């Protein structure tokens, strides 16, 4: 990375335009011109069963890797209730979990979840890539506290990945219109 380069460039934007169609947002030819990626997922599901965490996969050559190569760790809890927090994780999953940030139709109307993070070393074929994320789950119903999550998805493949694939945990759940996946590259 050269001193004086632009530090961050917007390179992908996938925006949902049909609520009846899309249960996934994917970028399958991510530029290899950078060292790290910054991603932001903003979304809401079209039914009440959509999980707050979407699935995420990576891959090479435009193909999704669903092998047992995902290490997962999450720490989450409620912002105004310090007594409830949870930390969990495991090794060798076949999919990554992305935050606890997305809302569904059971949550307050107009509240859209946001998850953001960085995919480190994604273009370096000598080391593993790893996603580190933060998310805030915010809504207005009295019965639900606002929730945070922070965690990782470690992709145990030493490769230059070019696929970022975000999907509902159920095929019967779709993204609502306006949900989006944005990717920035850290210039290299």
């Amino acid at each position, binding site marked *: 990375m050269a*001193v004086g380069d632009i530090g961050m460039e917007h390179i992908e934007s996938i925006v949902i335009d049909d609520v009846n169609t899309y249960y996934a947002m994917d970028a399958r030819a991510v530029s290899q011109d950078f060292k790290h990626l910054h991603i932001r997922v903003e979304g809401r599901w079209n039914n009440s069963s959509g999980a707050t965490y979407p699935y995420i996969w990576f891959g090479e050559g435009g193909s999704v890797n669903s092998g047992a190569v995902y290490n997962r760790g999450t720490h989450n809890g409620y912002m105004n209730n310090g007594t409830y927090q949870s930390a*969990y994780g*495991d090794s060798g999953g076949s999919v990554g979990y992305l935050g606890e940030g997305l809302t569904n139709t059971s949550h307050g109307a107009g509240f859209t979840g946001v998850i953001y993070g960085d995919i480190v070393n994604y273009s370096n074929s000598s080391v*593993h890539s790893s996603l580190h994320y933060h998310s805030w789950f915010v809504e207005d119903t009295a019965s639900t506290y606002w929730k945070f999550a922070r965690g990782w998805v*470690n992709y145990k493949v030493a490769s230059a990945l070019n696929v970022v694939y975000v999907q509902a945990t159920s095929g019967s759940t779709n993204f609502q219109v306006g949900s989006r996946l944005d990717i920035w590259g850290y*210039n290299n």
Partner: protein
Amino acid sequence: MGMEVLKSVTIGSGGQATTISITGIPATHDHLMILSSLRTNTSRTNYGYTWANWRFNNDSSSSYGYEWGYASSNTWAGYRATALDSLVYAGIACNANTSSEAFSYNKHYIPNYTSTDRAKVVLLHWFDNANDTGSGQGDLDSYPPYDWIQDGAGAWTPSTNAAINRIDMTLLDGLSSTVTIQEHSSVVIYGFTE
């Protein structure tokens, strides 16, 4: 103005002794973002990480403090300390207990890094990568080894406030033993202006 790369360090073949010194940081922007991805050669039993301690402008006076919260091994807690001679636990590195391709992730923000009328605050987020293949490794809910997620803030309050023009990142095994920082480790400093 967009974000601009001010300094970039990538450790080459053979590694480098225990400190990364970044000097000559220009006072050209309002704020800094620092992204580091680190690995060392140490192999402490049950630990997959090494701490990174920071100093600004080569100041070793008792002018650093921190307060942060972490999650590890199905526990969560917070700590604070003041009057330290460096910003300890400012970052983390994977070590030899993790697979050779595993690197940590640290992201820091330093707002108003050029100001001379205030102390400096460092916002920190770091994760050990625990990107491993062994049983229990990569978990937050089982150990050994320990895995970490941490967020918090640090402060540098020298006797005379100054623009930050140098950052030394010293990686230590157990806060005392020197290490070798491994190839592919990297630190990039970005500047940005409101």
